[in-house]
């Protein structure tokens, strides 16, 4: 029996850490898609770019891992504003298909450009010593980095939750996601709101990219490799819903980890089966608008 309990704890812990990565990276995508209906397939490219900024900062500028993560998030967030103003803004009114084409094109360009500068070999980052090895939480030991991931995720969720539910900006975003025209007619500048959420979302993606280096290693093709996974989290959670994205990340993260533990033969079948099942029953995801 303690053996079973041990397994359950491991699966929950690893699944939770995985879920936090998914949440951090996908939440920006969910909000921008909910707000503007903009299909941003270049979201993974921002995450990848963030990861490489972290690599550069730690490796060639000697900055520690944690400050590098923050700098990368802010830097990519700011740069994404330029992309939003120059390219994305032109396509708000156009069809999903054009948005798909533009953002896939951007992702391709990003992959080629980063391959040029960083090469195709997977990169890793030096971690501070307290993040290596494992940590004793009293009843058993856990990998430190995953514990760190969970803490960062929890902190971010708390901040986002507060902003979303208790501030003026959060109220405006929720209003605009619910009914954009109505929000505009009461004087909310949805365009500016979108720029803001886009920047924050891309910054968070960059943070997620930086955090993922330790999990998967970082290559330029990160930009598209995990894109489907992010889209799944967004769709299963419901567009523009913080709560939904979190729940979806948890469900996908934990069930995938558990599935891999118990039935490794099935591979990724679990993730897709769950996605299909949830969407067939609840087409707009857990907390999406019907």
């Amino acid at each position, binding site marked *: 029996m303690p053996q079973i309990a041990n397994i359950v704890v491991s699966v929950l812990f690893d699944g939770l850490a995985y879920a936090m990565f998914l949440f951090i990276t996908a939440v920006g995508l969910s909000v921008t*898609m909910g707000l503007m209906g903009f*299909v941003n397939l270049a979201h993974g490219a921002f995450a990848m770019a963030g990861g*490489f900024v972290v*690599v*550069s900062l730690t*490796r*060639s*500028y*000697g900055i520690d891992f944690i400050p590098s993560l923050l700098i990368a998030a802010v830097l990519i967030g700011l*740069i994404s504003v*330029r992309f939003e*103003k*120059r*390219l994305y803004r*032109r*396509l708000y009114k*156009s069809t*999903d*298909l*054009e948005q*798909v*084409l*533009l953002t*896939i*094109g*951007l*992702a*391709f*360009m*990003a*992959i*080629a450009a980063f*391959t*040029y*500068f*960083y*090469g195709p*070999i997977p990169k*890793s980052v030096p971690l501070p010593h307290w993040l290596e090895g494992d940590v004793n939480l009293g009843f058993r030991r856990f990998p430190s980095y995953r514990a760190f991931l969970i803490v960062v995720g929890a902190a971010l969720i708390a901040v986002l939750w507060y902003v979303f539910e208790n501030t003026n900006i959060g109220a405006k975003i929720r209003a605009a996601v619910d009914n954009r025209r109505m929000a505009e007619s009461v004087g909310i500048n949805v365009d500016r709101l979108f720029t803001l959420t886009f920047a924050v979302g891309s910054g968070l993606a960059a943070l997620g990219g930086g955090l993922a280096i330790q999990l998967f290693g970082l290559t330029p093709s990160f930009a598209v490799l995990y894109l*489907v996974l992010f*889209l*799944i989290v*967004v*769709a*299963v959670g419901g*567009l523009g819903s913080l709560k939904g994205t979190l729940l979806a990340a948890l469900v996908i993260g934990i069930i995938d980890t558990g599935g891999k533990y118990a039935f490794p*033969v*099935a*591979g*990724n*079948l679990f993730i*897709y*089966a769950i*996605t*299909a099942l949830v*969407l*067939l029953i609840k*087409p*707009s*995801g857990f907390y999406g608008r019907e």
Partner: protein
Amino acid sequence: MSETKPRTSAFFEARDRATDYLVRRHHLRWPEVLPWLVAIACFFLFPNRMTFGSQVLIMIMFALSLDLILGYAGIVTLGHAAFFGIGAYTVALASLKLGWSEPISGLFGAAVIAGLVGVVVGWFILRYRGLTLLMLTIAFAAMLQESGNLRSDITGGYDGLPGLTFDPLLGAFQYDLYGHTNYWYALAALAVVFYLVRRIVYSPFGQTLTGIRENVRRMHSIGSPVHRRLVTVYAISAAIAGVAGALFTQTNAYVTLTVFDFDSSAKVMVMLILGGTGRLYGPFLGATVYMVLEDYFSKLSPTFWQFGIGILLVLTVLFARRGLLGVAEDFVRLRLSGRAGDAAPRRLVWKPEHWKALGASALDGAILGFLIGFAANLSRTELMSSFVAGTPARAFIFTLGGAAIGAGINAVYLLITSRSAVAGAAS
């Protein structure tokens, strides 16, 4: 709401024109012969490149199947490779396990199986639209791939099924090294499929589909069986994708599970949008341009060809909204309608906001320059452990250079567009 206005002669005139249009629009027009002439000409111009040529034809057919549901019925899918894969595996397994290696009947078999699966899947998923539908299609293709890997004893997994043999075409034509038989075979199959699609698109059934795409509520309210129509067209499209997949297996004599890849679904969609959706010849142009450029860029630089493709896509969206075929149409129309604007003076009007635009491009250029300067010291070094720290001076120079280049490019762009703006205003 019913029409209550009195009917004027203008009304009848308009109605006649509309009927006339509907009657005539499915007639063959002379430019429609062009793609086929080009395809035939290619055979004589590039006899050594027919292996590639047949792949292009197969992708055209695949894109055409997608156009039927995406362009005409508005069903957005990123999992169409599922049906391509089903078709591909149908002929492979039929040849390997059942010894059924006659190619043409194999195509029919693939169409039937893929079509049947299309009916079942479509019946479930076509109640949904938008992102939900998109994710369901992705999930379906991915589940097929994963289950295929689960039974790699049957499918050969990611190493695939080698050594597939197919009978000579019509009992007479062997598959040759140069792919000549394959090319004619694929071209003939494409012609047949295209004829069917053309019939469907211009039939009343096709009209219903366009109606569903444009306004699904209205179609519901006038009593059109929307779901059944969608499932039907989805199944037809699935069958065509299956035929394309079967051709793929037959021409390569090989198939692996990668036919179900997400990449393949995404690529065919990109080809279609590039060419222009909802146009019969969009797939022809899109698939050809994409594949020829991919081939060209990848020879130019095997490592970085993706950059060229990426730029192509971005430029298409920014300057050619309706795809390459849309641009071509506009161009032809402009030519036909005469040059009304020609007499207008073509001079540059410099407005204050142009300075702002220049400033913005300079900023973009500076950001890009800074980033490259920031990363430049990393280039060509592979092991991260011993990087040299970048010099701030280099980052600074790159920033300034980027700003200058950005502003310069925009200045040239403005010089061109501002001129034509004047010309347009006068016409």
